[in-house]
């Protein structure tokens, strides 16, 4: 159970929206291991947006500037092939995608489309950079989690020219 940030007698002063956001972030593998205080700081930097089913969140080749976390609904990650789009992964609440935009300025390596309607949290790269500058702990934990995801992906992906992202690969 996610710990409440304020003591019980101050519950009337608690913002339910912020209290609701932090548990989603704590569930995401990218932010696992961050203490509540830092999750609270992270949660305030996210924008929230509603997407209809079928909405394209970003397309392969788009400039990547933000990380997304699924709050409600599902998101399909697809990649264009000669035989048509192939679904690489389907994400649900708590899952994060677009995380490579936080590290480099390369275009998106796959397309993200809203499967069933729902809400996403959006973290802009500059906000994340500012957070990392202000807290080495956030930088270390998130980079460690990201490196672990990349290691898992690298271990199960055969290296050959022209290989696209495999199911579950960071975007």
């Amino acid at each position, binding site marked *: 159970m996610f710990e409440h940030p304020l003591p019980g007698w101050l519950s009337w002063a608690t913002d339910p929206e912020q209290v609701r956001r932090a548990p989603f972030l704590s569930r995401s593998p990218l932010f696992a291991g961050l203490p509540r205080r830092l999750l609270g700081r992270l949660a*305030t930097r996210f924008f929230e*947006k509603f997407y209809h089913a079928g909405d394209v969140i970003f*397309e392969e080749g*788009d400039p*990547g500037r933000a990380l997304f976390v699924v709050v409600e609904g599902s998101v399909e990650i697809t990649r264009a092939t000669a035989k048509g789009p192939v679904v690489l992964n389907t994400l649900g609440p708590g899952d994060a995608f677009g995380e490579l935009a936080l590290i480099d300025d390369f*275009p998106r390596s796959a397309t993200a489309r809203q499967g069933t309607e729902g809400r996403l949290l959006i973290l802009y790269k*500059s906000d994340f950079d500012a957070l990392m500058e202000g807290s080495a702990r956030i930088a270390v934990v998130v980079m460690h989690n990201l490196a672990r995801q990349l290691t898992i992906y690298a271990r199960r992906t055969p290296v050959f020219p022209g290989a696209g992202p495999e199911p579950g690969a960071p975007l």
Partner: protein
Amino acid sequence: MKAFRLLGWAGLVALLWLARGLLLPVFLAAAFAYLLSPAVAWADTLAIRRSVTVGVLFTLIVTVLVVAGFLLGPGLLAEGAALMDRLPGLARQIDQGLDAVVRELAESAPAVRRLLPEGGGWVQRFVLDRAPAEPADLFEHVGHLFLLVILIPFFAFFLLRDMHRLMAVAMDRLPPQHVETSVALWREINGVIGRYIRGLVMDGLVVGALAALGLWAARVPYPLLLGAFAGLANVVPFVGPLLSAAAAGLVVVLTPGQGLAGVGRVVVLFLAIKVLDDTVIQPFTIGRSVHLHPALLLGSVVVGNHALGVLGMIVAVPAATVLQESVRLLLEHRRALARRDLRHHPQRLVV
């Protein structure tokens, strides 16, 4: 449907035109909200309701203002009253000096006389024109000031409390394909303006305090008043520091017993403050928010002055920075989309 939408937009424009008198209070309220936003953002990390945070902040500010009023108010009021008493006499003295210079000029070069406005006593007329002559005028001035004092915190309260809700509504209305660039733009603009306003206020406070201390040490009259003016004028790039130095120099010239040595002390003091401000204070306060070429910086201030006067000079630098960042992001977005289109339609590459 299209006609209704057009009608709605026309109504909105008309409403904004009617409410144009509120532009200054809203602008100042936004600046005030930016000043307080780091404290609100800190409270957000503890999941405290915005209304509670802003309420507590405003109570604290009122308390600080009341205490500061008790500590600094009597001194500032006494200096202000003394200056007001001396103002007509000072204006007369300056006019006598100016008349003598004009007479000399007219004797040596009669053509110059035609370039100057007719009659004498320019400074006295300037001072008297600005003083409210009728009790009705005085009430109008006080009324405007009172309205600003009420409206600025009122708008700032709601901006701080509800801005994130307005942003959430705007985000939900954005087409999905523009979300990332829009978030990037908003964050950059918000960051630049916020850092600039907070830096400017911090810079003004430090410069004002240094000027007041320096003038007090140099035994110049009205150090608190002149220091406060130096801090306020500092928000106007280039011209502000010159004006505050000129005001202090004028007071020294018109104070018996100060002489040229006093003017020299004031010049050295304001030069030292300017150098310190440019090399040490500004890099820590507003340096990180502005990345403009010096020529563009000066150009934006000149254009701002032509467009909106003093207000234009104050907003010119952040406006130019925001414009520069927006153009950079939009061009970057366009280039990336063009690259993607080329990948999807390589035949477009054929010349």
